[in-house]
């Protein structure tokens, strides 16, 4: 009887009482396979329930049902159509009635129950859109026949036992529908509850079909749309395409033209769909668009229709920086999935500033942090409603997570130390373990799907009238840069007829930086040196950077001491001037000429003079110091010349200007401290030129004689009060100069010189005479050298020391090389020293050096303890300084040693 034809398809019961009917059947070996299974499972279930493991029952039940069905198949048991389904339904209902709550297995069980019920419904013609015919009615009756409902206990409280419920479900079309939907919804909600969205979606799809049959298109749409989201998100093309097709049919049925359009767009661009379908739906789109009023806008997702492959900024130069207000160009690579070309009225990409100015950014982040500590919920869906907030929040997250993907483990090293600070343990700690190890169920990832919202397109990159061909397209977009910052391309909008296809650009979205370049102030001199004492043209310029400079911008220039400046249109020089600038556009350099005049005073050498100019910088709110070096246009030098007792002042005026010659006039030299030196007078020895032209090559030289009214003679007999003073004399040279071309007014040049020791105290006259009896000096013979020292003015230092310094290759000094003489005894002192010339020829005389001899205090010892003080130049006039003497070669030497005269 075991594999007899299946006659009884009553399900098992989880009643606590042992099913004695089945048990006796077993004893009599009169039971079917199903009976045996039923019995075994009911026992098993009974025990599990009494052990309190109710949830195990549903788990095992599912397996049990599957296995038994499989068994029936394998054994090729003959059974009536639908009988197995009835049995499954009964069993499932029994278990579900007896287990409470949702768990993994009840969801699957509900779903299984739903499947089987649907099969039954189809068999019996109870599904919507069908009418049960007589054979189907007959089937129902015969199925009920095998269902021994008397074996079920009546339940209290109007609750139906499985048999009753199933019978009711199959009793009429209406109640079938009600029961089926009920069960399906339970299955879906159970699946959702345990996080198996995908399974729920599968039921949803079938439910949608059911609703479609029942003409409840709206419900069907809801389920289809939900499923579609899942499929598209996970990239199951075939599935999403099927769903799309279904959805399109639904929308068409209820005449939801906008949604229908959107769906059509998706199908038309779905690579999984057949070309036929795609073209058909493309035609549908065109048809629908024709029906639509021209002005309306329909927003659709461009996710699959037009894919953005890349967006790159085109720069004319590599180092070009994008500055506020400048033009931006982007090349967009688009992939159109539509089967046909479309003429787009415009393609735009919205731009979002992702980084505000640095200072501001810090403060906002800080605020945000504080906010998050206060526990403000920043769920992405909330944040994404406002693009700028979102970017900030993201940034904040990044700084918190130190830029990590939240899905990645955030590992940290942690070292633990013992009390003596030695390492005790090192470990790696995962800070976001709960996030990483969380079971990835399909609910979390799939459900978040923000509705596409058109972004702000007011300063977008745009291109108009573009034809998009199927496949790859390159589009050039143009835009204008906003204020400084980093911008992200956030969304693309493709406008085609009334359709606006929107797509958010993926991460990492292309960005571009708008940088601000600060204007720079420059002060330029021309290619020539700046000259002091003459006005110089400078150009003050502003490199505008990225700024637009309005006309009338004022920059003040302050000069240091001795320097004055004027604007080109002014005539007066002043220490501070305000320079007005014309308008300037970005990257332009605007300049204004200014003139500076540097004082030329008392300049005695060619060294340049440094001056500082302070220029106010309106952008950096500070002043900058620029130092300028001026070459003197003119400078003068001074020389005190001596000729015996006469003193001459030579003044030279040099010119350093490379280009111009100067006309100098009114040259005069005056003694400044005349009252202190009444005896001194200056006598000009210059010709009476009215003017003299000097240039770089030609200096002007002037000569004055310094005349002292105290003559040497009158001085000699005078007593102490007429003593020569050491008072320094100060003279001042004044002259007026003007450039020869007359471009500048006449200016005065002054310089003062101070000098001392302006008297010749001693004169020295030296000569070497031939040895006695000889006409000429001959080498290697002793010759007397006569030195005459004469005092012209009384000098407190009357002890003098003379030295004879001779080139040792030419002269040998045979007498005393040096000695002290006391000149006070006689005004003239004659010294004779024997010298011997060593070679022949014109030999310069040995030099005689005269120094003040200051004996050491206390001991009138030798030279070693005394001090020699040199005279200053001009005090001693050596009359025979450059004299030479003709020396014949020694007589006893060969011709070859003769030195030629």
């Amino acid at each position, binding site marked *: 009887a075991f594999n007899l034809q299946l006659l009884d398809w009553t399900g098992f019961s989880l009643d606590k009482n042992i099913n004695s009917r089945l048990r006796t059947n077993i004893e009599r070996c009169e039971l079917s396979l199903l009976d045996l299974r039923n019995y075994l499972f009911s026992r098993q279930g009974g025990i599990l329930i009494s052990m309190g493991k109710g949830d195990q029952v549903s788990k095992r039940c*599912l397996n049990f049902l*599957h296995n038994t069905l*499989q068994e029936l198949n394998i054994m090729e048991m003959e059974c009536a159509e639908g009988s197995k389904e009835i049995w499954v339904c009964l069993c499932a209902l029994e278990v579900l009635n007896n287990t409470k709550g949702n768990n*993994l297995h009840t969801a*699957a069980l509900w779903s299984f129950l739903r*499947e089987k019920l649907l099969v039954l419904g189809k068999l019996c013609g109870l599904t919507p859109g069908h009418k049960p015919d007589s054979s189907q009615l007959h089937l129902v009756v015969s199925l009920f026949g095998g269902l021994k409902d008397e074996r079920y206990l009546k339940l209290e409280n109007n609750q139906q036992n499985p048999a009753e419920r199933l019978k009711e479900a199959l009793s009429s079309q209406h109640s079938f529908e009600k029961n089926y939907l009920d069960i399906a919804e339970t299955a879906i909600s159970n699946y959702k509850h345990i*996080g*198996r*969205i*995908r*399974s729920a*979606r*599968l039921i949803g*799809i079938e439910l949608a079909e059911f609703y479609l049959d029942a003409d409840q298109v709206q419900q069907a749409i809801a389920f289809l749309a939900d499923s579609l989201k899942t*499929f598209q*998100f*996970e*990239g*199951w*093309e*075939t*599935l999403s395409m*099927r769903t799309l097709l279904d959805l399109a049919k639904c929308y068409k049925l209820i005449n939801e033209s906008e949604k229908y359009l959107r769906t059509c767009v998706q199908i038309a661009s779905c690579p999984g769909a057949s070309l036929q379908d795609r073209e058909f739906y493309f035609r549908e789109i065109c048809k629908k668009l024709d029906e639509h009023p021209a002005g309306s806008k329909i927003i659709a997702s461009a996710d699959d229709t037009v894919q953005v492959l890349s967006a790159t900024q085109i720069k004319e130069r590599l180092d070009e920086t994008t500055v506020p207000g400048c033009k931006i160009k982007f090349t967009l690579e688009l992939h159109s999935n539509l089967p046909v070309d479309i003429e787009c009225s415009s393609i735009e990409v919205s731009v979002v500033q992702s980084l505000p100015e640095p200072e501001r950014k810090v403060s906002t982040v800080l605020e945000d942090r504080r906010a998050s500590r206060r526990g403000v919920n920043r769920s992405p869906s909330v944040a994404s409603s406002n693009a700028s907030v979102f970017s900030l929040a993201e940034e904040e997250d990044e700084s918190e997570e130190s830029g990590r993907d939240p899905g990645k483990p955030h590992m940290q090293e942690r070292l633990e130390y013992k009390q003596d600070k030695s390492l005790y343990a090192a470990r790696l700690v995962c800070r976001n373990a709960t996030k990483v190890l969380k*079971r*990835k*169920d*399909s609910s979390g*990832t799939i459900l978040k799907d923000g509705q596409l919202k058109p972004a702000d397109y007011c300063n977008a990159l745009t291109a108009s009238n573009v034809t998009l061909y199927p496949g790859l397209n390159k589009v050039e977009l143009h835009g204008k840069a906003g204020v400084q910052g980093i911008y992200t391309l956030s969304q693309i909008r493709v406008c085609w007829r009334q359709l606006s296809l929107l797509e958010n650009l993926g991460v990492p979205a292309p960005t571009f930086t708008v940088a601000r370049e600060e204007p720079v102030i420059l002060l330029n001199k021309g290619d020539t040196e700046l000259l002091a004492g003459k006005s110089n043209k400078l150009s003050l310029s502003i490199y505008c950077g990225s700024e637009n400079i309005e006309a009338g911008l004022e920059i003040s220039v302050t000069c240091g001491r001795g320097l004055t400046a004027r604007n080109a249109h002014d005539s007066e020089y002043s220490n501070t001037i305000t320079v007005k600038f014309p308008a300037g556009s970005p990257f332009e350099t605007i300049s204004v000429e200014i003139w500076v005049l540097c004082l030329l005073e008392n300049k005695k050498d060619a060294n340049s003079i440094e001056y500082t100019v302070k220029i106010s910088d309106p952008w950096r709110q500070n002043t900058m110091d620029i130092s300028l070096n001026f070459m003197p246009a003119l400078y003068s030098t001074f020389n005190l010349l001596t000729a015996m007792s006469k003193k001459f002042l030579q003044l030279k005026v040099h010119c350093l200007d490379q280009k111009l010659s100067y006309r100098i006039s009114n040259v005069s030299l005056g003694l400044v401290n005349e009252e202190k030196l009444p005896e001194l007078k200056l006598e000009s020895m210059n010709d009476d030129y009215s003017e003299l032209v000097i240039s770089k090559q030609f200096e002007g030289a002037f000569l004055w004689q310094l005349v002292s009214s105290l003559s040497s003679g009158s001085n000699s007999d005078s007593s102490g009060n007429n003593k020569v003073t050491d008072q320094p004399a100060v003279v001042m040279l004044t002259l007026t100069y003007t450039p020869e071309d007359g471009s500048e007014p006449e200016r005065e040049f002054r310089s003062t010189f101070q000098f001392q020791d302006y008297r010749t105290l001693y004169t020295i006259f030296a000569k070497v005479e031939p040895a006695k009896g000889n006409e000429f000096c001959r080498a290697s013979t002793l010759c007397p050298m006569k030195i005459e020292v004469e005092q012209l003015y009384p000098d407190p230092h009357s002890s003098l020391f003379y030295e004879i310094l001779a080139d040792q290759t030419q002269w040998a000094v045979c007498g005393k090389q040096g000695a002290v003489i006391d000149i006070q005894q006689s005004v003239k002192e004659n010294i004779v020293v024997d010298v011997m010339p060593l070679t022949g020829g014109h030999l310069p005389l040995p030099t005689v050096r005269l120094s003040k001899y200051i004996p050491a205090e206390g001991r009138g010892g030798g030279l070693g303890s005394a001090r020699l003080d040199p005279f200053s130049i001009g005090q001693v006039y050596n009359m025979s300084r450059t004299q030479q003497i003709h020396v014949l070669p020694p007589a006893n030497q060969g011709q070859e040693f003769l030195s030629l005269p």
Partner: protein
Amino acid sequence: MSGNYYFVIVGHRDNPLFEMEFSGSGNREARKDDHRHLNQFIAHAALDLVDEQMLRTPNMYLKIVDKFNEWFVSAFVTASRQRFIMLHDIKNEDGIKNFFTEMYETYIKQVMNPFYELNSPIKSAAFEK
């Protein structure tokens, strides 16, 4: 070994990488397209169960994870968490396990290909063997 099989490799982002359908006996490729997408539906729904089970067992081969009408769903998870899912209508545990291991080897070869990017659909003749 007769019966129908449907095999799919699912990537990290739950996207199908490779699909194949075959039947043990003769050429019954001429099955309706409708059926094929039903397979996908089942495989897709079974992902939930695979995700759940792979955390519970150290084995790569997960055995049968789901049943759907006449279909059984077996799964295999690679070391890199790629999921192989097999729909079959008869029980053939050893055969399927062998198939999975074989597939795994082929898959590893594919992954070692420097031109292959993880998680992208597999287009390879060798795979279709």
